[in-house]
């Protein structure tokens, strides 16, 4: 080793008998091992509890997990999620376009929609739709302040399920609009200039150039929203719709096996959320295609 205070430049010829032949000992992190052991002990305790504590009541869980009534309820939950997502994001894109419009009036319309539907708690909104027939007994199409052309009984037109879908979609649209808008404004303005300079029509610009690039920023947030909506559908149990959470409540109301049935719902929510997360991974990879080198 060089003595302190002098800098020795080692030529490549001398190097072989120098540092490169010495073995390297990695830095040791004893506290990491302490942490690992502590976590493992906690996990072991929890798993042991799951198996040995009779309170979890696994036989009841097993009996109900794939019961027909539960599977039907899972189906209803999925339908509510899909409709809420598709309709919510379709309307959300429209609202986002309004907010991004150059017209002050349209901007204000978009802003007001988002303001209103973010302000009203979902459960309150759902109950409003559920009770819409108290406000309007009949719905009709006609000329404003003029004669009616067709009219319907509100109760016939809007079922509880319909009210739930409308409520979820309108609620979701407000959040979707902001997510879509955040994606659109994250796209490099040069992209819009290039599209404008090439004379690509406006709607095609949005569909072909802006939206695919905005998807990079939209997707992680949108996946959050879909997962959140998926579990959020449990809120519509207040309208006595047979989705997953309502169904387990009905069953444990009858047999008092609360924990086992809550576990049935929990495991289904976990399974479906996992599937959504896997789907998210592949969709994100698709929209990142131009990023590969």
């Amino acid at each position, binding site marked *: 080793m060089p003595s302190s205070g002098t800098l020795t430049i080692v030529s490549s010829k001398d190097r072989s008998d120098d540092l490169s032949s010495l073995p390297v000992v990695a830095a040791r992190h004893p506290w990491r091992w302490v942490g690992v052991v502590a976590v493992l002990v906690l996990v072991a305790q929890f798993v042991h509890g799951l198996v040995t504590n009779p309170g979890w009541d696994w036989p009841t869980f097993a009996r109900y997990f794939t019961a027909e009534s539960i599977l039907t309820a899972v189906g209803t939950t999925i339908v509510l999620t899909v409709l809420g997502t598709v309709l919510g994001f379709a309307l959300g894109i429209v609202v986002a376009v309004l907010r991004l419009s150059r017209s002050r009036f349209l901007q204000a319309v978009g802003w007001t929609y988002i303001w209103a539907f973010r302000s009203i708690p979902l459960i309150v909104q759902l109950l409003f739709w559920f009770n819409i027939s108290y406000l309007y007994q009949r719905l009709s199409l006609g000329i404003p302040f003029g004669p009616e052309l067709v009219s319907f009984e509100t109760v016939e037109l809007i079922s509880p399920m319909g009210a739930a879908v409308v409520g979820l979609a309108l609620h979701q649209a407000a959040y979707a609009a902001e997510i879509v808008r955040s994606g659109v404004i994250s796209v490099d303005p040069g992209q819009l200039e290039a599209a404008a300079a*090439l004379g690509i029509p406006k709607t095609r610009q949005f569909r072909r150039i802006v939206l695919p*690039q905005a998807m990079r920023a939209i997707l992680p947030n949108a996946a959050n929203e879909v997962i959140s909506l998926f579990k959020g559908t449990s809120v519509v149990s207040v309208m006595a719709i047979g989705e997953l959470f309502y169904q387990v409540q009905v069953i444990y109301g009858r047999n008092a096996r609360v924990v086992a049935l809550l576990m049935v719902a929990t495991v289904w929510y976990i399974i479906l959320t996992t599937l959504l997360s896997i789907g998210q991974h592949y969709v994100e990879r698709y929209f990142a295609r131009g990023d590969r080198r």
Partner: protein
Amino acid sequence: MIEVLGVHKSFGSHEVLRGVSLEVEAGEVVVVLGPSGSGKSTLLRTINHLEKVDRGFVSIDGDLVGYRRRGEQLYELKEREILKQRRHIGFVFQNFNLFPHLTVLENIAEVAPLSEARRFLERVGLADKEDAYPRQLSGGQQQRVAIARALATRPKVVLFDEPTSALDPELVGEVLDVMRDLARSGTTMVVVTHEIGFAREVADRIVFLDQGVIVEEGAPGEVLDNPVHERTRAFLSKVL
């Protein structure tokens, strides 16, 4: 063919163009020189109406850009009609602005049928790269694709906004080669650049812009070798 007449443009209180007039004949190559901030890019962007002018007008083959004259009034065109006009005006950006999520061929096919898109790609010597994404290409190759894309709408004129300024020095040559070929084949071009060598060799006319006005214009030999105006001389002494 292009007529720019008395164009004024301000951003806030800063007047970038202060009455610029310029005519470009069909097949002519005009190079616009000038110090940064002199309004070169803004001038180019008013020609295809990316910037709306405050005063004056721009016309191409007698058609006003962005407006329609009816009697004694000018009517602003709708976005859709302006977009149609822009197909007659190719524009090449400093930063290429290729669409990163589309392949090279898809970038061009966005504005032209597939077979034509391939031909334009051949013309810039990148036929073998049609399935690559822009990020997989070098800067010079990306700019050549951008030029092919600008040609794909079969414009009457192509505007180049500092097309080599974002490139590493060793990549400048390949882009200038493509532009030289275009000039030789009779493409009408307006080029904003700092490449004096290119200007000398290719330009039919050089326009020197400073502080929003055209200070001097003429053949490359005159403007580059015997500048009349003091400001042209000062600029050239810095870049030559």
